[in-house]
């Protein structure tokens, strides 16, 4: 399955654009913005905060897309039925898409991290080893969201394909990605903390500010990740069964 994605990457301009063009535009935008704000406000930390948030956000978003867009590609090319009459199981299909999501972010994040260092003098690895659990936490949540989107597309067909690009952005203003939780009204904070993203990004900001890794945020992030991923898999399994019962697997690519 991933071999197929690699072949596409070699030949599809649209997929290369997904991988490089949009992340690079984001990097340039936030990079120059942080340079400007850093000079104006006299807050050199701002570049680190914005660029770390951007790169980590991109990890979540690309992993989610790695799953849902890979699935959509099979529908667009009418290859979906061909795949599901091979001995490949649904679990193998899902795992292959999850792995592809990780491969994609390895490529994109390496590029962004290198350019952030070269152009803006920001080294993401100042987050040190604490970067690892943050990244893992984001990957797992990206898998969960991507799996849910895929399940919805499976049930409602290509009419729901816009979710592959839009749903993740719902988490951007409410995930404490670029600004701290203290910005939100108090009543909302409790609700937002039911998502792993605010825990991860709060943790990132704490480490950048020179504080020790906030283990309680990390613990909550992983616990919530595990719950969301299990729920996402169960939801996908339910939708797949429903699709088989209603003959939707044949109609999905129409």
């Amino acid at each position, binding site marked *: *399955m991933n*071999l*197929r994605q690699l*072949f*596409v990457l070699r*030949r*599809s301009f649209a997929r290369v654009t997904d991988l490089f063009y949009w992340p690079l535009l984001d990097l340039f935008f936030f990079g120059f913005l942080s340079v400007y704000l850093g000079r104006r406000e006299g807050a050199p930390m701002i570049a680190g905060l914005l660029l770390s948030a951007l790169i980590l956000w991109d990890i979540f978003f690309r992993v989610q897309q790695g799953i849902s867009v890979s699935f959509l*590609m099979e529908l667009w*090319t*009418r*290859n*979906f*039925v*061909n*795949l*599901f*009459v*091979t*001995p*490949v*199981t649904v679990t193998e299909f899902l795992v292959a898409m999850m792995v592809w999501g990780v491969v994609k972010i390895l490529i994109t994040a390496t590029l962004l991290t290198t350019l952030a260092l070269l152009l803006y003098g920001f080294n993401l690895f100042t987050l040190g080893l604490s970067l690892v659990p943050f990244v893992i936490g984001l990957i797992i949540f990206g898998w969960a969201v991507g799996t849910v989107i895929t399940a919805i597309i499976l049930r409602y067909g290509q009419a729901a394909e816009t979710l592959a690009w839009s749903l993740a952005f719902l988490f951007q203003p409410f995930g404490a990605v670029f600004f701290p939780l203290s910005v939100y009204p108090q009543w909302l904070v409790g609700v937002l903390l039911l998502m792993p993203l605010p825990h991860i990004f709060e943790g990132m900001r704490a480490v950048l500010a020179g504080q020790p890794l906030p283990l309680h945020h990390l613990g909550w992030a992983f616990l919530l990740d595990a719950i969301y991923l299990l729920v996402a898999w169960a939801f996908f399994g339910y939708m797949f*069964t429903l699709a*088989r*019962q209603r*003959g939707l*697997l*044949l109609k999905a*690519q129409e």
Partner: protein
Amino acid sequence: MLLGLIAPTGGTIRILGQEMPRRREAILARVNFSSPYVALPHDLTVRENLVVFSHLYNVAEHRRKIRDLGELFGVSHLLDRRTGRLSSGEIARVNLVKAFLNDPQILFLDEPTAALDPEAADAVRTLLMRQRDERGLTIFYTSHNMREVERLSTRIIFLHHGRIIADGPAEQIVREYGKADLEEFFVALARSEREVSQ
């Protein structure tokens, strides 16, 4: 249902002695499928597509297999061309290469000649008949072309609103219903349905 894409509402399906969908993976490793209503990814070359499906079917020595099948179905010269740039006749033959990759014991072919001109359709039919005879292959073949059905099939099943209304060799069906050939039987069936609905 036979390929596990739709769940049956009742009854059981056994293919090659195994229950579908309970033994789905084991069954699907020994069968294959082709239809003009599904496609191989158009942005990959023919070879890339066949390599991907070789892996999905766990085909040993897939390079040799692709080369041999390419020669057999006359698509060797197309292997490095993008699938999206092929004509419908070429695509039909490439789909058949894909369908034979895992040396299936049963082949499900959904109107494999539907999009082809008469000459290309005849070439595909001849190839299929030769493979059927040489490999002892069982082919489930759906078609609205009654001449094709008559030529290819040893047993024909007419499904009408989900029910079997005729089942047997072409001569038997034609004899039972007092028709000149399958085409006449098919047309009479379609007309009777129209009259009932009116």
